[in-house]
């Protein structure tokens, strides 16, 4: 006999909503995204959710699964199921558009506010800056940047951070992690502006090192450590030191 999963899915919009229960046939090697897709295709076509790549690259499929934010396309049901049950909610700390789809705009707006775009160094005569091509992979800065560069912008860390919930202006772990990769990019010319943008109560100094972000990041990134790096850089910068 085929086993079934009891799946509670949050249905609603920005105004509110409630859980709706579905029964989904259990399969071997089934991901949480497979379960959601089954519900939408076979049981209720009005269910709203989001995905694209299905292989952990695009960062669009994140949801809260049994209380924890996860990328659903790379999360196997057997790893997270509890007593045959799954509880699915939209990502926390973001406005809900409908059902399991959240509005990621505030999340990416904060990347912009943290100056998360690369600014090439200008040379006076428009020539290629001298150190442009000299970035030894083994240099400490390159390694610090590498540690955070694989972020897929899924928002799992952002949804897991209580400080984002308690302090609406807080830029959050992903934007600050992005800023830290650029602060360590020797080719970047906006270091000073970026460090100014990430200082203070809306920036790195709001982080309390709960490490929820680090604990949950599906890419194994350590945003908490990156934020500590920003604090350190800003601290020694006050004394004109680069550390």
């Amino acid at each position, binding site marked *: 006999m085929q086993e079934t999963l009891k799946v509670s899915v949050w249905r609603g919009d920005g105004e509110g909503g409630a859980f709706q229960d579905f029964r989904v046939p259990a399969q071997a090697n089934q991901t949480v995204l497979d379960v959601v897709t089954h519900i939408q295709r076979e049981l209720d076509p009005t269910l709203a959710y989001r995905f694209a790549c299905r292989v952990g690259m695009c960062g669009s499929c994140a949801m809260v699964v049994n209380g924890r934010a996860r990328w659903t396309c790379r999360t196997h049901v057997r790893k997270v199921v509890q007593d045959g049950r799954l509880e699915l909610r939209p990502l926390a700390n973001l406005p809900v558009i409908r059902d399991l789809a959240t509005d990621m705009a505030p999340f990416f707006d904060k990347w912009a506010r943290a100056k998360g775009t690369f600014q090439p160094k200008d040379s006076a005569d428009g020539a290629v800056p001298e150190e442009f091509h000299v970035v030894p992979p083994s240099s400490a800065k390159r390694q610090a940047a590498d540690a955070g560069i694989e972020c897929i912008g899924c928002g799992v860390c952002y949804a897991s951070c209580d400080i984002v919930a308690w*302090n609406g202006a807080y830029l959050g772990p992903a934007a600050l992690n992005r800023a830290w990769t650029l602060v360590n990019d020797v080719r970047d010319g906006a270091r000073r502006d970026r460090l100014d943008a990430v*200082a203070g109560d809306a920036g790195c100094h709001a982080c309390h090192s709960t490490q929820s972000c680090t604990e949950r990041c599906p890419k194994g990134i350590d945003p908490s450590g990156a934020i500590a790096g920003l604090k350190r850089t800003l601290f020694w910068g006050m004394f004109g030191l680069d550390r």
Partner: protein
Amino acid sequence: MSARGQQHLWVAQRVTAMILGVAVVVHLVTILVAVRGGLSAAEIIGRVSGNEAWLMFYAVFALAAGLHGAIGLRGIAAEWLGWRGRRFDLAWLAIGLLTAAFGIRAAAGLYAA
């Protein structure tokens, strides 16, 4: 307050934390040693009275603790009660300094006893 000012509060929080890290260990050890066989007024006064080193220690300790506590409360109040802004910041600074003053006064009293 500007982001720069907020950063300075964070720096003050961490610098006082480092001072307190040392001071609290001294304080705890003193408590553990002093409590052995029961606390007595004569013992405390005998240790602190007329001793500049202990006075300085307690004065720095009280100042660091007062500021550290007030900055910490500021953060908790902002996050859990939504108390934000310049007026609250000034109030917390005043509370921190006032608390420190009380502590320094107590230390001075022991020194003079």
